């Protein structure tokens, strides 16, 4: 399998503070990978560095092309959709406008309309509320909207930052089921950052464990889930 995303020796900085210390990993095309770690380990920073939202050095290659100094919007235009922490909802706009914004870089009008219908099929609750102001949706609904908005890009790679945050366990299960389906059926490569390690490892096929800005463990998700030492020292369950 070829690597869709290749990250090597990634170092990221917030002002003078270094948050990532030479991170390397790669994502295979079509894979569903999870990046695990405690609070402050650098998971979010890793995603932000891929989209050039934080100052970083090192190599990031997408589909063989270096991302270099591309601006965030130009990284996105390559087909990398990022569902940020906190969901990034356009709260003052309607649900449908949020979905249209997800496809704002596309010009294939009829396909956009059918994609919106596809999102409503994935997430029926969004269809019920399509004229509603997105800020009035519940946390779970907003998370679904954020995922749907990202999919409207027709991305090749989707980055998700703690999609389970603040959601009821049942809703998280639903959401993860849909993510698995999107990965299998739409062939979208997914990288999901999670604190809920148990659930993420059930969903993913590959896993990386990150601690204080370094990768400390990598492998197949089920192997990591079954390795008691890893679980105890890094995942805390």
């Amino acid at each position: 399998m070829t690597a869709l995303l290749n990250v090597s020796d990634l170092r990221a900085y917030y002002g003078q503070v270094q948050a990532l210390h030479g991170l390397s990993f790669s994502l295979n095309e079509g894979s569903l990978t999870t990046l695990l770690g405690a609070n402050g380990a650098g998971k979010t920073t890793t995603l932000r560095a891929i989209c050039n939202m934080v100052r970083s050095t090192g190599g990031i290659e997408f589909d063989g092309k270096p991302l270099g100094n591309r601006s965030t919007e130009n990284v996105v235009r390559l087909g990398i959709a990022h569902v940020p922490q906190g969901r990034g909802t356009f709260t003052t706009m309607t649900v449908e406008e949020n979905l249209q914004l997800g496809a704002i870089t596309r010009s294939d009008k009829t396909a956009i309309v059918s994609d919106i219908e596809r999102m409503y099929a994935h997430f029926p609750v969004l269809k019920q509320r399509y004229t509603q102001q997105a800020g009035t949706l519940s946390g779970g609904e907003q998370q679904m909207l954020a995922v749907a908005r990202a999919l409207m890009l027709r991305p090749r790679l989707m980055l998700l930052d703690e999609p389970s945050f603040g959601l009821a366990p049942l809703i998280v299960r639903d959401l993860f089921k849909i993510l698995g389906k999107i990965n299998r059926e739409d062939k979208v490569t997914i990288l999901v950052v999670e604190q809920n390690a148990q659930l993420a490892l059930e969903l993913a096929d590959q896993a990386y464990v990150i601690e204080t800005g370094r990768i400390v463990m990598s492998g197949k998700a089920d192997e990591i889930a079954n390795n008691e030492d890893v679980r105890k020292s890094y995942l805390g369950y």
Partner: protein
Amino acid sequence: MELFTNQVLAGIATGAIYACMALAVVMIYQAIDHLNFAQGEMAMFSTFISWQLMQWGIPYWGAFVLTLAISFAAGILIERLLFKPLAKAPILTNVAGFIALYAIINSVAGLIWDFTIKQYPSPFGSSPFLGSQLISTHQAGMIGITVLLLILLYLFFQFTRVGLAMRAAASVPESARLVGINTSWMIALGWGMAAAIGSIAGMMIAPVVFLEPNMMLGVLIYGFAAAVLGGLTSPFGAVIGGFLVGIFENLVGTYIPGVGNELKLPIALALIITVLVVKPAGLFGRSIVKRV
């Protein structure tokens, strides 16, 4: 009663101009969170450009359209050259930038066209509108142009992709970038549109206040009052605020003894302060509904 109707209609007419200025101010405020103190001077300079074009023999509406285009381009240029580099600078740096821009435009206009007042033509004439003594054709024209502008802007923001992208960039810039919107250019576009809207206000008010480099000072203060009254976060509110300020100004000037023309401007300032103290979000500056 006729005096009252007359004053209200005249207030709506000048209110239309305040509405345009307020709209221009709000567009830039939405994009960069700063009040553009130079908005009035930009409008004044645009009006001089249109006057100059007419002096060179271009007919009114030709000059009008050309001025819109020039102002739009100049607005973008000002953003790219001056305010894009200041995007991450502290508030006071930006304020200094606006004041500098104000002084520069004012002086350059004085240098090129000097400070003597000039007659400025109205495309609508100044005869009574539909034979009525209540309102002149120019006043009716001002209202008509403003309403037309508002409808066009509404259609633009509600039904075009660029309009949608601009709204997104103004409301959540980071998310806008994450769906692939070039937010920096959306800000520049906002500046261009604000400059063009301001130029309409300038060209419409010039036949009333006469053309000279300081003509927009009072108008801009009323525009600020309108924007604050309506709510700086609401373009719709800014427009309503504009009309309300126009009517209020006229009625106070007419009915409260001793105010007259001289004390009208302090009324606008008093209005700004009152709104900021009593209802800081303004009449229509809705607090955003958020559930977490």
